[in-house]
């Protein structure tokens, strides 16, 4: 029983991190394409951008719904405290989702497409912004009392570091969105996104450098974790690997490779996730609540492994299957009947 108390929350921490990772990759390029659509000059291009997402956007977004549902069941205290504290960033994200979600179908049916184009682009940007603020706030820490309930104020999430995280996250989404479009499109459109990809790689790098430098300076907790033996060697390796990956990414963009940039970007995201995970674990709200304190009863965690965990391979399989069905370049701006 003693080991279960530790083992089960760890399993769920990994599962939820995996869901969040899939979400950030998949909806990351989804939102990134949405943000990029704001820079698109003509209607046909925007049509292609939206077509490249039409069959997958809701499945991509569902990974977040799944992550949140899993968090609710596995770590109820974290779910309630985090969401309670992040009332405003979550709302920013939700309204972004609403606008971009309905834009797909409304744009198709509408004659004044400009309004729904804007809803799609601005909605995507807003959703990413809300997520960035939420991530920044969680990293910064949430004020709680001894029972783990939120006691801070409504605007705690807004700070210079959280703005920095939000901006960097948006850059990351634009980067992965660009490389996705490089993969899925051809011709002039592809060329444009080689350029946006390069630009976003640089801006992401700048943001990442700033965050990496400022984090140990601002947060004592992170500093302690970073210089802890033997983790310090891994943490020393991460920036080096990161720079190498960005260099590889830029090279592949220069060589006009089609798939490699997307894959290098995913690897960059993997690395970031590993770094964040190592800084946060075993906390779920950094420096305040550990996964063991926030976890639901062991019996709940076991039931959830049976009801959700075993479905993970199945979900991965049919998601992958539909990517295979819709493989290849997107050229038409029409959905097709």
């Amino acid at each position, binding site marked *: 029983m003693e080991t279960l108390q530790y083992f089960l929350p760890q399993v769920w921490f990994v599962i939820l991190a995996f869901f969040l990772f899939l979400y950030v990759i998949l909806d990351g390029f989804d939102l990134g394409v949405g943000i990029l659509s704001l820079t698109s000059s003509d209607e046909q291009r925007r049509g292609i951008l939206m077509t490249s997402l*039409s*069959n997958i956007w*809701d*499945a991509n*977004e*569902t990974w*977040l*719904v*799944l992550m*949140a*549902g*899993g*968090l*609710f*069941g*596995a*770590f*109820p*205290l974290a*779910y*309630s*405290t985090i*969401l*309670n504290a992040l*009332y*405003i960033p*979550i*709302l920013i994200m*939700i*309204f972004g*989702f*609403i*606008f971009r*979600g*309905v834009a*797909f*179908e*409304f744009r198709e049916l*509408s004659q004044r497409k400009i309004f729904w184009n804007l809803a799609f682009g601005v909605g995507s940007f807003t959703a990413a912004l809300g997520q960035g603020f939420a991530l920044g706030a969680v990293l910064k820490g949430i004020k709680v009392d001894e029972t783990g309930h939120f006691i801070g104020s409504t605007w705690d999430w807004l700070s210079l570091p959280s703005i920095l995280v939000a901006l960097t996250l948006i850059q990351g989404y634009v980067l992965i969105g660009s490389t996705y479009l490089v993969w899925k499109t051809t011709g002039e459109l592809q060329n444009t996104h080689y350029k946006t990809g390069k630009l976003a790689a640089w801006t992401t790098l700048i943001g990442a450098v700033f965050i990496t430098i400022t984090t140990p300076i601002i947060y004592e907790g992170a500093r302690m974790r970073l210089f802890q033996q033997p983790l310090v060697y891994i943490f020393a390796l991460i920036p080096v690997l990161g720079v190498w990956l960005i260099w590889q990414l830029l090279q592949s963009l220069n060589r006009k490779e089609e798939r490699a940039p997307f894959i290098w970007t995913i690897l960059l995201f993997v690395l970031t996730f590993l770094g964040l995970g190592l800084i946060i674990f075993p906390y779920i709200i950094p420096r305040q609540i550990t996964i063991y304190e926030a976890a639901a*009863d062991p019996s*709940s965690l076991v*039931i*959830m492994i049976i009801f*959700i965990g075993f479905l*993970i391979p199945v979900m991965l399989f*049919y*998601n992958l*299957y*539909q990517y295979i*069905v*819709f493989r*290849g*370049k*997107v*050229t*038409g701006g*029409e*959905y*097709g*009947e």
Partner: protein
Amino acid sequence: MELLSDSIVLSRMQFALTAIFHILWPVLTTGMGIYLVIVEGLWLKTRNPDYYLHAHFWSKFYVLNFGIGVATGIPMEFQFGTNWAPFSEAVGNFFGSVIGFEASWAFMLEAAFLGIMLFGWERVNPTIHYLSTILVAVGANLSTLWILTANSWMQTPAGGELVNGKFVVHDYFEAILNPFMINSVLHMFFATLETSLFVIGGISAWYILQRRNTAFFSKSLKIVLAAAIAVAPLQIYIGHLSGEQVYHYQPTKLAAMEAQWKFSPAGKPADWSLLAIPNAKAEKNDWEITIPNALGYILEFKQNLSQPVRGLKEWKPEDRPKMVGLIYYSFRIMIGIGFFFAGLMLLSSLQWLRGKLSADNISQQRWLMWGWVFAAPLGYIAVESGWIVRCVGRQPWVLYGQIRTVDAASHLPASNVLVSLTSFTTVYTLLFIAALYFSSRIIRTGPNLDLPIPGVEITKPAVDTTPAEFVPDERPVEAQQ
């Protein structure tokens, strides 16, 4: 206003608003998913192109509703944490897991196969496509299963107990199969199906009245009529069973549904109030029409009550639902619509048997067709009324008999909730108008009967006779280059 400075009241208003608005969209997709399975099956079996075109035409409504359903569903999930943090923490062990089950069993399945169902006609073979359509319908209906399981558990908590303010589960299957669960799932399953049937029937009837594609739409009308023959009576019966369960498990709700203020003992008949003006302050009905000795028949088809019906006066005002009138009338509206559907179904079946619904003479049935058009929005009203009875009637409890709603809300500054409530109201009003506008546009445009039918060779004239006309390229994207 005092109301606007109370964040709990505002959170409740926000939850009510977002839930009432959200449910409008999945109701249609869950029910219509089954209809799409039927028409695609008919297409594969008979190879009659009309069924293929039906699948295409109605899936336009499906995708419109699905998009709004997803967009308005996300706020529901997050609100448990943002506005109801104490509730989420207290019931996370069970309720949170179920929300996770819904996402993994239902949402992901529906979302992943919807792409293939909508855009995959020419990318996968017919069997895989049909399988995708079936899985979309299964996914949508699994969502009904889990969300109704979660809500039923809030009505009749089972399988564990509150320990230090947290619900500790002893038996998961007892919690899942709580007393209300099976009936509630079935009641909602048939509610979405019945609403969708009458929406499809209503739109079909509108075309028939306009004499547009009469033969085509008489097909869909007959399919939904055939389904309604089974669904309409079954739904009334399951509704009755649900009422009986309320009688046994939720005495405060039953008293509000029937506006019963005084105690009625078991073993005796009691009067049933048909229409009334309940007055919560005076704790009586200001005016009412009662049917003597009918309550037993309404509840159990028996003259004498098998257990007492308790009156609202027996509880302190803070221990019983406040909005008695709302519950009482919502209940009656829901039942009225259920019987209206059954009546319309009977009348239409009669005309069908008399051969009056054939493609040649169906458009002469003007009154009957107007009846169907009138019925199209009623299912939604019935669903909303039913949920009002269910959830307003559960008050003052969020977890019936165990956790009060006032203790379940997050402590938020009222200004935050006021801003979010106002934003939701504005955005949802816009969405509602846009959805109505775009639906009516789909209806006005009508079905595209010139779609190429898979497996049928297109015979084109050797010389293009109308070169100036824009011909949309309907081939798969690869072939367009």
